[in-house]
Structure formats: structure tokens, C-alpha cells
């Protein structure tokens, strides 16, 4: 593959299934899977030749066996795959779930000190140099990122915290959990984990293997392809998605924390799932010719009929001012809208109209709990709301501008936005150099971007709450780290298709033409086009002390922030 020194190197352009999820998947196993009822009902003819069903099963799925007690997914982890139980019995732990310390979660993997210390001596001046042997040596790698140590419930220090009776050592079955832990069985044929996988979000529940359990782990790309071509799967996934959303969101919501199981069931039965706006909002947003559509969810002055619990996307809360609307704040997953007015109506007995408007920024998923249910089950059990959403209008109008800007630019999506205080920034580029030095000599952001007053949001990955960049990735190279949910690109599996870069509404992903370590460009042997890799900020994943750009700023000008924390302190700006 590698040609002479002065010549460009060539490398077969990577394709979707160059790096299978698990290289050990055999034809035998694929055949076995295709014979199962879940897959034999699928019309394989509807799949394109480039991505046939058996190809999906072969390359985007893997079979994993969990010992009794081992956790399959953990609540709070970021998931990129769903699971189909093939044999054995899994069990989901329903909210409130297990305490964090029982989940055996280590926040980050320990840093590789040897590599850190050797880093200054390994720096290369070749831009975007890669060891291409790593790409061609397929046997030695696997696309599965989940090599983390498995955690077992049976390894718990004090069994009394979980079980009523001590688990017998070597037992084939995990004893039932104590009465305070509610669980649901997941027999063979059950699909779980699809909500987090498709919604680019966190696992909403912990699932463990009750007996030895054989599961099919499916990359979300496999799930997407199958549900796009098979109605049964689509309905199954949507049903599961909704029920899971209902169950978890309602059970976890602090407003409903006082409700008992039966009341909660009633609430769930009456609750509606609503969607506003477009799930693929970023396409609109990228085309800046026209203002993106912003569907109204609730209008100021209308009478509310239910409480909205936001489960995904973003909503703008605004109030009429002059000839336009003034943005007060924005809402996202976990927030709610309409409580103040509904509670006041219930308390005073007269109908109170919405004091503010809510509109969907991009898309907004919400659960609507009708007023009647609230009046019967919720309001009698909660303390009166201490503040009202409309109170935020008390700040000076001058302070709106920054919030309006962050909303308009959709920076609300970011969780680690690179915000630079230009009044402090001496333009020394220490941040860029630090970034380059921690990424093999290559910067991973551009120190330039949209400015508002003294604030500049540089072109660095914001690690969005809704990472739309992940939508089109054919290989799953771009994924969220299991702990922390950082959006990370696996360089080994990236095929340079550019889907993520095009999807990113903020232009924070860049395609780079790679070079061999001798400095020569690496080209596709046929088209002679350069081999590309998508690159972006990974928040210095694996470094012991956080993003090096922020730590390298000697003037405290550069911060990685969740802009909402700033917006809430808007007038401190």
C-alpha cells in the first residue's frame, strides 16, 4: 500500500463497514439471527444492495453474553446502541433507580501517564499525520468502544442494600431485588436502550442480566436502517420510545415525586406526548437565508389546559413587548411550562391565562399533563411554586441582548461552549497551541467566531445537548462518551464522508486531509482524492485535568461553559 517516499501514499477509501462492530461476528451467527422471529418478518428485499439486512446484522451488531448480575446498561450513561434480548432474562430497574455509588461508575478512565509524559517528545510538525497502518490492520481492532470493565450487582459490598436475601455464590439466577427497588422483566425478544441510542441522550434506566443473558447489541445506525424499512420495527420502536419516555420522565419528575404508583399510573394514562417543530431543525438553521420556523406551543393570553414537561429539544419563553416579543429564557429537557398559571387557577378558582409564550426552537418534545389530572393528583400534593417564570422579565431590557443572541445563534444547545472574553483575550493563541499540542500537533478549533459585544463563541465543538452531528454518521465513529456524554469522533472508524461536518449547525467539525508520518499526503488509489477525517474538539478526552485550551488561557479569557448558566446571570455580563 505504501509507495515510495516522495510519492503520495494511497489508502483504500474507508467505507461504512470497514470496521465492523465486532470482527468476531460469524456468518453462522447472522444466519441464526435471520431465523429469529424479530428478523425473519423483515422484508430483506427493501434494503439497498449497499446496506443489506444481513450486512447490517453482520457489521453493525454484535452478540454479547452477560453473566448473571452484570449491568448491561447503566442509567445516566450515554448510549449509542440498543439491545435485543436473545436468550436468558434481563431486568430493568425502574425509577427512582439505584444510587450512583451502586452503579460502579468511574467518572473517567484514568489518564495514560506514560503517553502524557512522552507527548512533548513525540510531537510531529507534519500536519494531520496518522499512522495509516492502524487503518489497514483490521484484525487488530474492533469498532466497539465498550471495552469498559463490566459491573456486576453481585459484587456489591453489602448485599443488604439491594437484596432481601444474600445471593448464593455461583448461582445461575440473581435473587429478586429488595422491595424498595421496582423492576420490570425483559424476556427474550425485548428491545431496550433504543431511546438513548436514537435520541442521542442518556440511558434512562439500568438493566442487568438476571440469568445468563445473550443480547444482540445494535448500533443506532442499524436500528435506524431497519426501522426505516420495516413498519413492525418502526411501530415497536416508537411504542417503546413513548412508553419509556412516559414512564421515566413522569416517574422521575420532581413535581410528581409525591405521587404513589396508582396516581402516577392515572397521570400517565391521561398524559399526551406532543412534538413541535422539525427534528431535523439543523438543516433549516444552516440555511440562513430565511429565519427558521419557530412553531408556537403556547401563546401569551391563551388559557392553559395542561402542564408541559419538556423532554427534548428547546423552547423559547417570551413575553410581548412593544411590537415584538422579548425572550425571557429558554427551556430544555427537564424543564416545565405553565405550572405558575395552572397552579394559580387551581388555587384561586378562576382561570388564569398564560403569562408568557412558548415556541419551539428547532424541535420540542413535551408531555402534556391535563389540568384535571393535575388538580386531582398533583396540586394537592405540592408546595406552591415559589417563583414564576414571568419573574425573569424583571431584569433590565438591556440584558436581553445576550440571551437573544445565544438563542438566535442556537448556542443554547452547547454544554461546553468555548466562550472567549475579548476584553481579556490578548490573542496570544496559547489556547490553540495547547490544543494542538494535546492533539498530535493539530489544533481542533478555530479561534474565531460569532461575537456579541466582548463575547466571542469560537468555532470549537460545543458538545451539544442535542448533537445533531451524529444523525447521519454511517459508522458510528461520532459518538457520545459513555460517561459525561462528550461528543467524540473515533478516528479509526471515521470514513471522512463529511456528514457530521455538514450537519453541524455551527461549523465546528472540520474535515482534514491526512498525511503519513513522513509528511506525504494519503490518497485514494482510484480517485486520487485525499483521504479525509472528520476532526473536532473532544474536550481533551483522556487528559487528567480537563480541556487544555481553558487551562492554557493565562488571562482567564477562555471558558468552556454551558451558556445557560451565564444567561441566567445575564446582567452580570
Amino acid at each position, binding site marked *: 500500500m505504501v509507495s515510495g517516499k516522495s510519492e503520495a501514499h494511497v489508502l483504500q477509501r474507508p467505507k461504512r463497514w470497514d470496521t465492523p462492530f465486532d470482527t468476531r461476528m460469524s456468518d453462522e451467527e447472522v444466519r441464526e439471527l435471520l431465523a429469529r422471529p424479530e428478523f425473519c418478518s423483515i422484508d430483506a428485499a427493501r434494503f439497498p444492495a449497499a446496506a443489506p439486512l444481513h450486512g447490517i446484522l453482520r457489521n453493525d451488531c454484535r452478540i454479547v453474553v452477560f453473566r448473571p448480575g452484570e449491568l448491561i446498561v447503566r442509567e*445516566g450513561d450515554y448510549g449509542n446502541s440498543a439491545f435485543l434480548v436473545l436468550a436468558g432474562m434481563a431486568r430493568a430497574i425502574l425509577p427512582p433507580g439505584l444510587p*450512583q455509588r451502586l452503579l460502579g461508575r468511574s467518572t473517567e478512565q484514568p489518564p495514560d501517564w506514560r503517553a*502524557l*509524559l512522552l*507527548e*512533548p517528545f513525540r510531537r510531529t510538525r507534519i500536519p494531520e499525520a496518522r499512522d495509516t497502518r492502524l487503518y489497514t490492520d483490521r484484525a487488530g481492532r474492533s469498532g466497539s468502544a465498550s471495552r469498559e470493565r463490566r459491573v456486576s450487582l453481585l459484587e456489591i459490598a453489602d448485599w443488604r442494600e439491594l437484596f432481601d436475601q444474600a445471593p448464593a455464590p455461583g448461582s445461575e439466577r440473581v435473587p429478586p431485588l429488595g422491595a424498595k427497588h421496582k423492576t420490570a422483566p425483559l424476556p427474550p425478544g425485548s428491545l431496550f436502550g433504543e431511546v438513548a441510542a436514537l435520541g442521542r441522550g*442518556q440511558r434512562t434506566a439500568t438493566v442487568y442480566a438476571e440469568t445468563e443473558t445473550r443480547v444482540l447489541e445494535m448500533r443506532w445506525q442499524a436500528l435506524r436502517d431497519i426501522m426505516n424499512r420495516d413498519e413492525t420495527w418502526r411501530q415497536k420502536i416508537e411504542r417503546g420510545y413513548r412508553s419509556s419516555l412516559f414512564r421515566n420522565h413522569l416517574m422521575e419528575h*420532581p413535581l410528581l415525586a409525591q405521587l404513589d404508583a396508582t396516581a402516577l399510573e392515572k397521570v400517565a394514562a391521561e398524559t399526551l406526548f406532543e412534538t413541535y417543530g422539525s427534528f431535523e431543525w439543523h438543516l433549516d438553521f444552516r440555511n440562513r437565508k430565511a429565519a427558521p420556523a419557530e412553531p408556537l406551543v403556547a401563546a401569551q393570553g391563551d388559557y392553559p389546559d395542561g402542564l408541559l414537561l419538556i423532554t427534548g429539544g428547546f423552547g423559547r419563553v417570551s413575553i410581548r413587548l412593544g411590537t415584538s416579543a422579548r425572550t425571557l429564557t429558554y427551556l*430544555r*429537557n*427537564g*424543564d416545565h411550562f405553565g405550572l405558575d398559571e395552572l397552579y394559580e387557577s387551581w388555587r384561586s378558582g378562576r382561570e388564569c391565562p398564560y403569562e408568557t409564550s412558548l415556541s419551539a426552537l428547532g424541535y420540542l418534545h413535551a408531555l402534556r399533563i391535563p389540568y384535571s389530572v393535575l388538580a386531582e393528583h398533583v396540586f394537592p400534593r405540592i408546595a406552591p411554586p*415559589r*417563583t414564576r417564570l414571568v*419573574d*425573569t422579565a*424583571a*431584569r433590565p431590557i438591556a440584558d436581553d441582548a445576550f440571551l437573544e443572541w445565544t438563542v438566535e445563534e442556537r448556542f443554547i444547545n452547547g*454544554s461546553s461552549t468555548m466562550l472567549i472574553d*475579548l*476584553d*481579556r*483575550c*490578548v*490573542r*496570544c*493563541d*496559547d489556547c490553540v*497551541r*495547547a*490544543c494542538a*499540542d*494535546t492533539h498530535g500537533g493539530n489544533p481542533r478549533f*478555530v*479561534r*474565531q467566531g460569532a*461575537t456579541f*459585544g*466582548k463575547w466571542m463563541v469560537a468555532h470549537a465543538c460545543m458538545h451539544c445537548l442535542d448533537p445533531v452531528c451524529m444523525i447521519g454518521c454511517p459508522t458510528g465513529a461520532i459518538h457520545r462518551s459513555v460517561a459525561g456524554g462528550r461528543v467524540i469522533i473515533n478516528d479509526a472508524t471515521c470514513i471522512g464522508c463529511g456528514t457530521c461536518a455538514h450537519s453541524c449547525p455551527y461549523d465546528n467539525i472540520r474535515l482534514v486531509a491526512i498525511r503519513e508520518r513522513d509528511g506525504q499526503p494519503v490518497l485514494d488509489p482510484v480517485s486520487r482524492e485525499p483521504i479525509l477525517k472528520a476532526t473536532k474538539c473532544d474536550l*481533551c478526552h483522556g*487528559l*487528567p*485535568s480537563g480541556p*487544555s485550551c*481553558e*487551562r*492554557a*488561557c*493565562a*488571562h*482567564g*479569557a477562555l471558558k468552556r461553559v*454551558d451558556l*445557560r*448558566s451565564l444567561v*441566567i*446571570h*445575564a*446582567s*452580570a455580563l
Partner: protein
Amino acid sequence: MRSKTLIRALLALPAAHLPRPGRESARAGFVAGLYLAGTLALWLPVAAAAWYLERRLGTGELVTGYALLVFTFVLAAFNLRKRLPALPLGSARAWKRAHLAIGAIATALYVQHAGSPYPMGRYEQLLALVFCAVVVSGLLGDFLQRLLPRRLTDVGGEVIFERIPAEIATLREQAEALVLASVREAGSGALSQYYVESLDWYFRRPRFLLSHLTGGNRGGRWIRDQISALRRYLDEREGRALDQIEALALRKNQLDAHYVLQGALKLWLFVHVPAGMLLVALACWHLLVLHIYAL
């Protein structure tokens, strides 16, 4: 999960919605106090020990001397820290604060150590001069770092220093294209003559550097004067081209300011860093000579 809880807490708490500048400034005051205390805690023991020893048979110079040497190395290590961003060596911000504090301490200790402002020995005179250069350039740099970023913010049109030549070249290309198009369409020579006589000079490279450095607006005034002088000779179509050219020139004016101010933010280091390196070398030499000849 934690951030979720935090946000809920923020939404639930009444006061969290409202800014608390009082608390912010109190925190800043606390940090400043801590910083000052740290500085004094680092300086006073050394100075006092040296002063005491000076009055107990005069080895105080050794204390201040070695402290100065250690501090010089710590100060120089700031540069090293910048080269090793991956290692958990503390944030650069803390380093810079320590750099300022230790720089101030070292200056005080230097005065105590040297006694007279200008020593008698020739290499010691060089050492003193270099020390002076480091301190003065450091103070200047700190001043510039506090002053110029705000000026840059006010100028607007943020640009990366290394990209300024490319941006100026692009502006020049665009201006030339506008002039050419205008000449082709209108056929009048006024605009092209004017471009050749004046604008070509302006778009060639950054201009009015001193004015930008001192905060003046000579460039902007120049553009205004030139454009208004020319406008009377142009027809409507050429006038539109001139408007676009004016916009380009104003952007160029911004770039010029960025070039000068960002350049100034880099240039002081051309004194500070080499002089600092020289200082480390001379300090080591001083130590060696002293140990060979007098200690």
C-alpha cells in the same frame, strides 16, 4: 444527571434568576486578598530572613540570592508550562498570577540583594541591565495586556493575526475587481485613476500604524476624505461601486488596527523572553563566579 439537577435547582430557586453582582465582587475581593496574602507570605519570610542574617554577620545576600535564583527559574518555567499543556501542571491563569506576584517579589528581593541600583562589576552591570529590561518589559506587557484587548474589542471585526495578510489581499482583490467592473461598465476613468493614485497605496499593506497604535482614527478620516472628494466625479453606478469600495476600505481599516494592536501584544515579548533567558543564564554565571571566588 448532575447538571440536570443543577438546572432544576436553578429554576426552583428564586434568587438564582437574578444576578448577584455583590456576591461576584465579594468573591473577586476574596481572591485578590488571598493572592496578596500569598504574595506576602512568599516574600516576607525571605526578606525578613535576609534582613536578620544581614544583621547576624551578613549572609543575607546568600538567602536573597538563592531565593532570586529559584524565583527566576519559576518565572522562566511559565514558558515551559505553556509548552506542556497536557500535563496537569496547574492552569496557565494561576501560573500567570504567580508570575506577576513572583515577578514583583523578585524585583523587591533584587533591590535588597544588590543594594545599589547600579553595581560596580561589568558583568554585574549587564545583569542589572538585563534584570531591568525584563522587569520593565514585563510591566509594559502587563499594561498592554490590560489595555489593548479592550481596544481590539472596540475595533471589532475579530481576526486572527496570521490571517491578516490573506484578508487584506482578499479585500484588495475585491476592490480591484469592483474598479475593473466599473470601468468596463461606465467607461469613465475617474474611479480607476483614483484607485491607481490612492486606494492602491492604501490596500497594498497596513497603513496609519502609529495612529492605530495610539488610538487615533487617521485611517478612517483618510477614507472619508478621499471618498467624499471623489464622489462628485462619479455617476450613480460608479457611486454604488464606490460605496462598496468604502466598505472594503473600512474593513481594511479594522484589519490595520488589529495588525498593529495584536502586533504590539506580541512584540513586547521580543524583549521580555530573550532578556528573561539572558537573565537566567547570567544569574547562573553569577552564582558560579561567586562560588568560585568568594564563597
